[in-house]
């Protein structure tokens, strides 16, 4: 009974981790319903009924099944309907959660090739320092960090009872990895949750000097171009390009990648 004090800890942990109920499981009937919609959408896609496929995929996303693969399929359907902007939008949304998917990257590159505007990607210090971030998803980074977090605690725990040189160096190594991964996770989280990128959805749109119809036309953008949205105001959105061009667009001309609506 020397370690009887551990008993309340175990009780606390058991209360914090309600494992069985943590993952939102569909009830059996609901699960079957969305699977049927998914299969039907795929069937429509194969039969060339792309509009029906798009509607079905959008329905799935609206009902909470916003899986990256559904966004990918939606992108394919938009692409087949010659909606390049919406296809790129869906592909980009899928890319957030599965950045290394070969099919997705191929289709996204193919779609980007057809975009009229040549907009160079912006390269800042952080994007160069954390160059691996575009290739890992947020959840992958989180689990890496969680494992390193656990390893760090285990090392510290062992060190409470047993002190040795190799343990010290192990602890240093784990600590470094823990710091890098933690910073990466923070950066990734900021990228995902503060993503102001938007995709132009109209074939050609004029970017104005101000949020009014009569303002001077500064330049034109074409479907599929990716811009950064700065703010929105009265049905207009102020956008920025990597080369510091700025201007106003009607809000129906573009859609944020981070927006969850299909």
């Amino acid at each position, binding site marked *: 009974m020397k370690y009887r004090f551990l008993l309340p800890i175990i009780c606390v942990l058991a209360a914090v981790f309600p494992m069985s109920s943590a*993952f939102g499981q569909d009830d059996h009937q609901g699960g079957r319903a969305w699977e049927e919609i998914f299969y039907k959408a795929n069937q429509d896609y194969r039969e060339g009924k792309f509009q029906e496929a798009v509607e079905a995929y959008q329905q799935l996303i609206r009902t909470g099944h916003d899986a990256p*693969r559904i966004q990918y399929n939606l992108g394919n359907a938009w692409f087949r309907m010659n909606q390049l902007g919406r296809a790129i939008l869906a592909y980009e949304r899928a890319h957030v959660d599965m950045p290394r998917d070969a099919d997705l990257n191929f*289709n996204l590159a193919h779609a980007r090739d057809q975009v009229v505007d040549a907009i160079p990607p912006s390269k800042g210090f952080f994007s160069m320092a954390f160059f691996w971030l575009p290739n890992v998803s947020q*959840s992958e980074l989180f689990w890496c960090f969680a494992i390193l977090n*656990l390893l760090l605690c*285990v090392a510290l725990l062992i060190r409470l009872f047993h002190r040795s040189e190799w343990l010290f160096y192990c602890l240093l190594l784990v600590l470094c990895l823990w710091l890098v991964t933690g910073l990466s996770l923070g950066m990734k989280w900021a990228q995902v949750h503060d993503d102001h990128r938007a995709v132009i959805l109209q074939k050609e749109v004029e970017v104005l000097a101000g949020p009014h119809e009569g303002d001077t036309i500064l330049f034109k953008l074409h479907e599929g171009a990716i811009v950064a949205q700065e703010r929105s105001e009265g049905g207009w959105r102020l956008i920025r390009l990597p080369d510091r061009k700025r201007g106003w667009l009607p809000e129906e001309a573009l859609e944020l990648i981070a927006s969850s609506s299909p």
Partner: protein
Amino acid sequence: MKKIACFFLFLSTLLLTVQPVKAEVSVTLNLDRREATLADSIELQVRVSGARRSDAPPVIKGLEPFHVTKGGNASRVEIINGRYHSGVDYTYYLQPKRKGVFQVGPAGIKVDGKTSKSNVATLKVAAGGEASGSEKGPVFLTAALGTQKAYVEQQIPYTLKLHLRTNVSDISLDLPETDELTFRQLEKPKEYQAVYQGTAYRVLEVSYGVMPLKPGRFRIPPARMGLTVYSARKRTPRGLFDDPFFGGALRSGRPLTVSSEPLALEVLPFPEKEKPKYFSGLVGRFTIEGSLSGSEVHVGDSVTLTVRLSGKGNVNRLPDLKMPPLDHLKTYADEPVFQTRAGADGLTGSKTMKWALVPDREGNYTIPPFTISYFDPEAETYGTRKTKPLILKVLPGETQTLVTAPKTEKSKDPLKPAKQAVKEIGHDILPIYTSISGLRDDGWLSSKVMGPGNLFCWAILVAPFLVLGMVFLGLRLNKKSDQAIYAQRARKAAHVFLKECRRDHKDANGMMTAVRDYINDRFELSLGSLTPADVPKLLMAEGVHPDTADRLRNVLEELESRIYTGGEATCGSASRDILEIIKQIEKELR
């Protein structure tokens, strides 16, 4: 001796490495001038390349208006860049019988049973002495234009003839300088004998092509030739310096500049009538030819389309033709090849353009005709030339059967096709995902809900530290609780001792044991035995006064002596003394 051997070795190596060129037999006919008088003797040369001897002498057509004298033949051998060339030259001298324009040639020659024919040359024969009747000196220069009226960018022959009756050297030429005309030398200077106004001259002829750049009436200024003239001296008895060996080098000469007469040229603009819409400014006569390297090709294979523009005139203006885009037919343009040649007839040239065509779908493709327009100054009309439409039949791609052959060591099959880069034929997106695996919602761990606001994430991250903190805290608490137990036991040690001593009447042995337990409890020790000598040290180390410690030692020594002397059944006054001393120790330690 060694050097001679090396020389012969080098010579033999050179001869052995010479590769005879197995070229086809070609025949060229040359006249030493294009214009002559009835008094002139014209040299005709038939040059055969590719054979050192012929089956029979050449047969030359068009020699009826001339008296022909055979000048002999000479075979020649040339080694250029290690390649062996051979040929034979036949020379004839022509004496015109009448004036007129005559076509000389072609010359036909039979080599190894096969007859080859040469080109045709034109010779204009005029009556002798048609120039000004004035007497000219021993050196004079004449200039002549091919025509007095020309069109913009038309090539006009401009011939300078230096007539000589004396020896000259150091000849230099200054061409007329004018912004409206450009001069280009057409041939190497020619030298021949001619009769001018009944006097025989040695003639040095230089031909240029003149190209006017804009319309208008122009005066071509005289051309000037600078030279050194050596006067003819009376023959004297041959002295040392008249020896031909010295070549007259020591004779004195005088510098002389001779000028030609100025000439007039009228340059006409291009007529606007029937001018083609896309006229590129070509002047002369041009042709266009198109061809495909094959009329049938498989999907993915390439075929070469060649278009060749050639002609005589301002060939520098030959345009770069563009291949029109064709559906399902990728085109890769090659660098155009441009060649020019200046000859007696003027400037000729060609431009060859090539495209690699790669079809990506089977079917019949029609290559549309390529067109060029030019102005023909002789006919004074515009001309248009087109290539014929070319048909390319594209067959389905070949299905290749994979054959596995046993690999033999060091076997190299020369017929084995070389590896080539994979060609992309089409572009399209990849198909949709059809499996439901990976489509389930990740719940609390999906990217959208993951973040600082997600308690579950925090729980996962904080839990290990929570455990660590609790373990650490537990250890600290555990340590503290042990200390508290000991302190409590220490505080209670005197009370327990006094209580036990009052309850039981202990003998000497029991009292010694009780004192030992008291000291163990009081000072958190675990002594198995306690001697009176050890006690003062222990007590003084814990802060007990030395007198008190000595008193306890004395009492304990008394008890010990009782044990060893058989009086252990009673403690005597020691029991009471010990109680007082313990109380004293507690006071001192408090």
